[in-house]
């Protein structure tokens, strides 16, 4: 396995935000993830790409235990994931996630979406939670929409609310699962701008995306997954200009020809 950051470290903590070792996962008989190894340094931005069904979403969903793995270790900020609910809660407290389809709560307003977790999980007083939520909404540049229901917003606005909702939990690590794939072309930029800004603030990011421009601007490393295995990982520069593996070259040519 290649390591581009912190080559000299033997211990898993505290230098790494996420350590994945010999990870295997099956859906029934189907072997989705095959011996995945990945170390993510603190503050590192990683872009994960690969064809559909390759296991890239499954991989990042293993990090906050939306998917259970059958073999191997997943260690998040020094905590190894087990079946223990307390452990899972501890990990989830540190990890924010943004979904392809936003998964905002349509029965709540934008502000209520953001304050839900601070009020009910962190037991924050309502006024304080609302102040925090407004801060987060300002970071994604939609404080003026706070009183609306999410169904009244555009896709791009909804995804930014979803980012703000995650930020309200002050996560150390952010997972993005194809955050712009469900958006109209006009709205992709406003979401990517927010993500780029977030990246500049030093948060650890793992992002499944095919936005190559974003990868070039933000990523420290690009990881290509196919058939449940990490085929190639490299700096964006090398990855795009000089892909090593045939499978990567094919994938790149398909993406670029299409775009």
């Amino acid at each position, binding site marked *: 396995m290649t390591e581009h950051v912190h080559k000299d470290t033997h211990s898993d903590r505290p230098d790494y935000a996420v350590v994945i070792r010999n990870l295997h996962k099956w859906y029934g008989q189907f072997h989705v993830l095959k011996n995945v190894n990945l170390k993510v340094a603190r503050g590192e931005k990683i872009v994960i790409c690969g064809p559909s069904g390759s296991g890239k979403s499954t991989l990042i969903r293993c990090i*906050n235990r*939306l998917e259970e793995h059958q073999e191997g270790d997943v260690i998040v900020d020094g905590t190894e994931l087990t079946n223990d609910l307390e452990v899972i*809660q501890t990990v*989830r*407290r540190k*990890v*924010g*996630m943004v*979904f392809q*389809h936003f*998964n*905002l*709560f*349509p*029965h709540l307003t934008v502000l209520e979406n953001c304050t*839900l*977790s601070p009020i*009910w*999980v962190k037991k924050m007083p309502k006024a304080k939670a609302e102040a925090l939520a407004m801060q987060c909404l300002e970071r994604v540049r939609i404080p003026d929409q706070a009183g609306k*229901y999410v*169904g*009244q917003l555009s896709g791009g606005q909804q995804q930014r609310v979803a980012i703000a*909702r*995650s930020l309200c*939990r002050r996560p150390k690590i952010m997972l993005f699962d194809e955050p712009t794939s469900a958006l109209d072309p006009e709205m992709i930029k406003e979401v990517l701008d927010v993500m780029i800004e977030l990246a500049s603030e030093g948060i650890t990011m793992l992002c499944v995306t095919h936005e190559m421009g974003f990868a070039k601007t933000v990523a420290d490393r690009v990881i290509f997954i196919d058939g449940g295995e990490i085929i190639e990982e490299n700096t964006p520069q090398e990855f795009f200009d000089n892909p090593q593996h045939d499978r990567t070259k094919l994938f790149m040519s398909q993406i670029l020809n299409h775009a």
Partner: protein
Amino acid sequence: MTEMAGTPYKPGEHPDLPPPANTIGPIAWIRQNLLSSPSNIVMTAVSIWLLYTIIPPVLDWMFFDAAFTGANRNECRARVGGACWAFINERFSLFTYGFYPIQERWRVDLSFILLVAALIPVLYDGLPLRKFGLYFSASFPLLAGWLLLGGLGLEPVETDKFGGFMLTFVIGVTGIAFSLPIGILLALGRQSELPIIRIFCVVFIEFMRGVPLITLLFVASIMLNYFLPKGITFDLLLRVLIMVTLFASAYMAEVIRGGLQAITRGQIEAADVLGLKYWQSMRLVVLPQALKISIPGIVNTFIGLYKDTTLVIIIGLLDPLGIGRSSLADTKWTGLSTEVYLFVAVFFFISCFGMARYSLYLENKLQTEHSR
């Protein structure tokens, strides 16, 4: 620049214009809905003629030619040709209270007033101090139970004295109040990952749905005595209440399960990721949405339950229909079944129509998409 045929505006400068005058307003409505085609014109004419021939005689019978006072049937019929409401008038307190002791009937009245007061905070969420109102609503069943049954300083009243509309309200309100929470638990239990809970819920729901309510009422009235240890009896009305509630809960569970299935996996995942625990994510994320979707089905079940309370006549409880039937046996008032059944029907219709309208109001109020 291309010229659009007949458009005086440049591209991008077209203002918003009002719709054509003949597509809005009452005249347009009449043309669209009543006179849109020759066959519709005929149907409209026939409908107006039918209404003209049916409504005036009905109104005459019910109101203008009806007798509201009189000592017996013959007095009624001798004076006018319409309905004999004097009968209902005379039996009104029996219809309302059943055989509840006359000097204690204020307790029933008070319970009814408290019921209305307890419903207000449940039904309208804009109320000031709603939280305290809800505490009162939650304590209402105990309070009403004490008022109606007596004890603790009040004259005890046996439940076999309950009857009429009061009995309908007792069974209906108890069934409605308890079947919703039990139904929610059953619906969640049916989706549980714990096999014991899931199997219990499935078996319970399928059994309750698979057996007619009348059968359950017979079980409650007769067979339960065989199963209970000797010397232990509990009140017939209580047994009926339990059976009706459980029966409605099973239907409720299936209605709510339909709502739960409409909630995407993503909603639950988002709640998980935000750190909400199971019951928190159910209460704050899943159920508010699932119940909102299920409102028509839930109210449908409520209305069904409310009307099914008339089935208790079979095991000898005197609901309004039972009172009506026994009243018809009075020789002074024979042959007035139309009046009796119409009266009972109107009572049930008003209650059920009220529930249906409230459900529509609630659906509109909870509409959060594009509500502007």
